[in-house]
């Protein structure tokens, strides 16, 4: 047991199957996500990569017709188990979405939304969370003078970093990112990528991306999904330089529909 649940493994996905109604979207997924690593999930549209990442914090259950089978062990506990409260799981596993989705409130309220609903009331510690979260998200210098302005006044890239800060504020140990840069320009993208690299020291990050270059630049491990199957999973250099599967090679070299 101790060998299986060494400290390095955060997520251990075992024989995961998922259906939307009668359509199977994930087929027999087995993979491990390690601590302090960036795991990139790549694959063509509709291959199940977003479905997979949303399963990791059970956001997928907001869709009524979803049915799952198999286990996802998070630090050794099956997340589908009854003892796991879904709200608790989501405070430990933060999520950043495709389009920046700050709440229509001030920057201050956005970052502290999570701590506040989870009962942190002390003003000094709230201020501290605010500053550390925004600093970790590399946003503090840009917003420290206008913390009480509406978040919608920020640029798209700043909004996305605010959403990252908001996720960090509840102090998770995993951050899931679902194509976090797809709505951003190259400069904002570069900033987010830099940020992901610096966050790696304290968090485990799992990122869905459409950009092969991005996966190559920022990830340690890469998982290639195709039609709901995990085709190949391994170290990023290996996947990109010497893929085992022909389909992976075709996709990575762009010979794919």
């Amino acid at each position, binding site marked *: 047991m101790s060998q299986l649940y060494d400290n390095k493994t955060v997520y251990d996905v075992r024989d995961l199957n998922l259906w939307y109604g009668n359509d199977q979207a994930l087929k027999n997924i087995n993979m491990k996500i390690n601590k302090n690593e960036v795991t990139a999930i790549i694959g063509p549209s509709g291959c199940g990569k977003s479905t997979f990442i949303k399963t990791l*914090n059970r*956001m997928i259950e*907001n869709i*009524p017709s979803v049915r799952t089978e198999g286990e996802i062990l998070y630090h050794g506990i099956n997340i589908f188990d009854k003892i796991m409260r879904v*709200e*608790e*799981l*989501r*405070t430990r596993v*933060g*999520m950043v*979405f495709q*389009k920046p*989705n*700050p*709440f*229509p*409130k001030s920057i201050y309220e956005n970052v502290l*939304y*999570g701590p506040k*609903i*989870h009962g942190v009331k002390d003003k000094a510690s709230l201020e501290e969370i605010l500053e550390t979260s925004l600093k970790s998200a590399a946003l503090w210098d840009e917003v420290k003078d206008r913390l009480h302005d509406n978040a*919608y006044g920020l640029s798209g890239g700043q909004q996305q970093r605010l*959403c990252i800060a*908001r*996720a960090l504020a*509840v102090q998770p140990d995993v951050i899931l990112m679902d194509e976090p840069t797809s709505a951003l320009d190259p400069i904002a993208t570069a900033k987010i990528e830099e940020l992901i690299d610096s966050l790696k020291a304290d968090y485990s990050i799992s990122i869905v991306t459409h950009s092969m270059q991005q996966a190559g630049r920022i990830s340690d491990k890469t998982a290639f999904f195709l039609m709901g199957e995990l085709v190949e999973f391994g170290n990023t250099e290996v996947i990109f330089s010497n893929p085992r599967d022909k389909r992976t090679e075709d996709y990575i070299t762009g010979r794919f529909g």
Partner: protein
Amino acid sequence: MRGQFSSSYVAFINPREKEYKERSEMMESKTTIREQIRTNIGKRKNRTDQVMPKVFLMMASISVITTLGIISTLVFDAAKFFSEVSLVEFFSTELAPLAKDPKFGILPLINGTILSSLIAMMVAIPVGMAAAMYMSEFATAKVRKIVKPIMEILAGIPTIVYGFFAYSFVTPLLMKLIPTLEAKNVLSPGIVMGIMIIPMVASLSEDAMSAVPNALREGAYGLGSTKFEVTTKVVVPSAISGIMASFVLGISRAIGETMIVAIASGSSKNFTFDITQSMQTMTGYIVEFTSGDAGSGTTGYYSLYAVGLLLFIFTFVMNLIARAISKKFREEY
């Protein structure tokens, strides 16, 4: 008949000739359609395009002209009233329009209007909001499909029925709880007015909440919020302007409501804050007077216009507020 016969005859004799004929006919009809289009496009369409907008404008201006007409009637006749009664007397607490020495202090009417509207909103806001939150965030599509039409039926009941319901059902019921309640009182019609306004508040608030982008809900769920927290801490604050607008429109509906208060609230013109007593609202006053008590040209007759003008100002301001709020609402997310 004859042509038909001859053409089929030709076809019988020489099928190819028929083919040629058909083809040439097709060509011919093509040119004629083209010609038709060319000639038509110049004249007929242009004429309708010139005339119809003017017709539409005329139709649209009917409501504008009517509004202006009503306002000018109110203003002119109210002016006649104010030439006889000073503003100071108008805003006093003594109302006795039919006495030998008539008094036209309107404060009892304003008081009755505001109190009944307040009671109505105290019913409509919590119930309407709860219903809206339920339908927008908690109900399954199936339940919503059943509940929403039923609520809309509630909005379609004539107000006279509500008035009757207040007088003959709610008042006796309340009398059991509050023995000192008078047969005509402001509490019962206030409550029933609230019930009448529930669908309006619920449906407008639900629209505002449903319009909140799903991405915001996802963001909140992603931070470990429960459904209730998502609803109260994210969806409602994001939709607050639309919700507030529904409240204001509800208030304006309550202020303008006539039949329920005319039936169940009576016509006492006392200035009091005791909601178990009979009170008259501005609308109730107008109903009482137009049903025959005031002779045309008397001060009492003109007082109707003064009250009507004030009522108009009340609801107009409410609508302006609602409009300002919902304008802000559009900019929120």
